[in-house]
């Protein structure tokens, strides 16, 4: 593999982790939004808050990682994406602010009115942010972002059938991941009613997500033939794996195997993220955009790629044990320990 390929692979790993981890956090917000009235929804909201609380900042850092690596390793592509997709990315950025701040504020407020206000801001932005990020992915994948500064259409580059499909899938995947993760969290906390509630949600979202994905095939066929071609040829094994993992997840949820379903649900989503990459390989900004660009052509100077990859490898040596410790501490369920 070339240095450029290594770089995009590392970037894509970061993107996958962002989708899986932060996606689930966004999904938590989705379920917060649909948890029902203040009183009835309280137990669900508490569970969501407890599950997200200590980890969402760490999960969120993967996005920064992706952005920084994109501008370092593929600077012209970064500039093209950010300038053409200025509108959805600004909206996503504002959504990220609103979500993070509102979550922190809600946790730290004790009055019902404020909790409602901050809670609504948190939940709403949790749904809108992944949608806009999804439209960005759709715009790139359907070849609507050309190289150059704001060289693409500022509206139709992200407001088009493929983008709307990708946005919907992003929201759906987030909700689905969160529902499956929350099943296990609820069961660990011996909240059987909650576990059942999230089980129902996981089943419904799983089915809806599958249906949207199937319908999406038609959308892509009409709107993004090149992407469709990639997905049905080179990336076909991954697309099929995603389908299998999706069906397996549904069966596992039905049988209440909540820990296994975490793996299969994550696999189903991962396969889509890598399927997209494979479908548009070797392009970073694929045609039909006139000024399209490949991974090799868009890569930064090799000295930069070397330095960055080495720095990241050194960083990973520090990060991985730290992350493992974090997750281990939190996964241990400890009852009766009160933080004053």
């Amino acid at each position, binding site marked *: 593999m070339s240095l450029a390929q290594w770089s995009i692979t590392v970037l894509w790993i970061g993107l996958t982790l962002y989708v899986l981890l932060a996606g689930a956090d966004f999904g938590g917000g989705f379920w917060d939004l649909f948890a029902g009235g203040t009183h009835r929804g309280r137990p669900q909201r508490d569970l969501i808050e407890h599950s997200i609380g200590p980890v969402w900042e760490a999960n969120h850092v993967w996005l920064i990682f992706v952005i920084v690596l994109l501008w370092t390793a593929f600077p012209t592509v*970064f500039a093209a994406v*950010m300038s053409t997709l200025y509108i959805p990315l600004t909206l996503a950025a504002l959504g990220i602010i609103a979500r993070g701040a509102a979550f922190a504020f809600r946790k730290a407020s004790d009055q019902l009115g404020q909790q409602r206000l901050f809670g609504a801001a948190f939940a709403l932005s949790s749904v809108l942010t992944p949608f806009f990020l999804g439209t960005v992915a759709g715009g790139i994948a359907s070849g609507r972002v050309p190289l150059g500064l704001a060289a693409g259409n500022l509206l139709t580059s992200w407001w088009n059938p493929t983008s709307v499909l990708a946005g919907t899938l992003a929201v759906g995947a987030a909700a689905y991941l969160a529902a499956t993760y929350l099943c296990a969290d609820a069961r660990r906390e011996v909240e059987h009613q909650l576990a059942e509630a999230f089980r129902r949600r996981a089943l419904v979202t799983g089915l809806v997500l599958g249906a949207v994905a199937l319908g999406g095939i038609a959308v892509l066929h009409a709107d993004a033939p090149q992407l469709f071609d990639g997905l049905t040829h080179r990336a076909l094994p991954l697309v099929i794996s995603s389908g299998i993992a999706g069906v397996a997840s549904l069966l596992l949820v039905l049988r209440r195997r909540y820990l296994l379903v975490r793996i299969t649900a994550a696999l189903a989503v991962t396969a889509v993220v890598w399927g997209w990459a494979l479908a548009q390989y070797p392009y970073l900004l694929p045609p039909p955009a006139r000024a399209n660009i490949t991974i090799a052509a868009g890569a930064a100077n090799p000295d930069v790629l070397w330095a960055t990859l080495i720095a990241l490898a050194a960083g990973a040596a520090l990060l991985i044990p730290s992350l493992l410790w974090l997750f281990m501490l939190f996964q241990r369920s400890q009852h009766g320990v009160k933080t004053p």
Partner: protein
Amino acid sequence: MIAAAASPIDLFAARQQMGISLGWHIILACLGVGMPALTLFVEWRGWRTGEPAYQLLARRWAKAMGVLFAVGAVSGTILSFEMGLLWPAMMSRYGQVIGLPFAMEGIAFFIEAIFLGIYLYAWDRLPPRQHLLSGIPIVLAGVASAFFVVTANAWMNQPRGFDLTNGTVTAVDPWAAMFNPATPPQTIHMLLAAFMVSGFVIASVYAVALLRGRRDRYHRLGFLVSFTAAAVITPVQIAVGDYAARFLASYQTTKLAAIEGVYHTGSHIPLTVAGVPIGEQLRYGLEIPNGLSLLVGYSPNTLIIGLDRVPVADRPPVGIVHLSFDVMVGLGFGLLVLGLWLGVSWWRRRELPRSPWFLRTASLSGIAACCALEAGWVTTEVGRQPWIVWGQMRTADAVNPAPGLLTGLVAVLVVYLVMTIGTVYVLRRMARYHQLAAPQEVDAELGGAW
């Protein structure tokens, strides 16, 4: 809708948006660097002495830190978006040159986030010694990430480590870019500023409580620890500031000329305090004869390069740069005097100064430190204009040509206004009702996460 070129309004909007979001984040970032060290210090004292006041301080500061960190994390993310949303031409050409420190900053920030999560969540789940140790990576990573980010800003002042052929970067030495000549003065100055801001901001909260008659050990310690830390750093910061200014005299003469309002190159240049630029002269200021020449080269014969060496189009706006520099220096010396006041009183009587004016002034020290921080930042950023990358790329050429940046500015203004109100409100409530939890904490009996 296809972009043409950025209108002057959009350029203005982009600069304001970047300014507002950076100016907002810089305070949070400083608290994120400084507060963990102070919190760990009081936790350590509490552990060693068993004194409840210290232990309580550690808990309270940690909680506030949690809220500030959460808000700082998102306000920092926005900046990485804005680098591309607002300045894509700069990133397109130079993104790879300054990418390395940002990648490292990402790792440092990640470590900070992880250990902050552990530190806040596991307070009662880890033995005290382990818990204290779990806080150390927060301090180190905070300092490291501030260092990395500021190296990139230093590079914008002293761009190094790349070859340019026909507007395309050909060879890159990312290490040379990172360790450019402006890196030492800028990073040291920034890190010390972070500790000063943190110390004085916390101190001013406790000064208000002391003024209101809450003179118990908890409040006195809270004030003394934070204020002393900041006061001790202040004279060091003034010396480093002098070094940073002298650095400009050799490396970025135009910026120094704008800071001091020197229009004409020459020796025996006076130091002008305050004043407004009218024509090619600072008027109505207090002039200290030979002052600047003496400060820069310790001799009145020292030659100072004036703005006349560069075309008018390449000059930064003198008025704002000069004024903000004076505000920074003035506030810095004011804080120095305040620290000396406490020092003298403590040396003579082991007690806070008797005059209520001490605490009244100290309760403003946090705001003063933040204003000095902002003023210093305006000095260095506006003093670099009209360049975004000094001598290489103009700010006007770096901006996103997409129309409608003004709308983005309005949206950002609204969101930041709401976020400011929310942060202040929540922190005030947390100070009053201590059972409220920080966002990373998991209260009660549930303890799950994915």
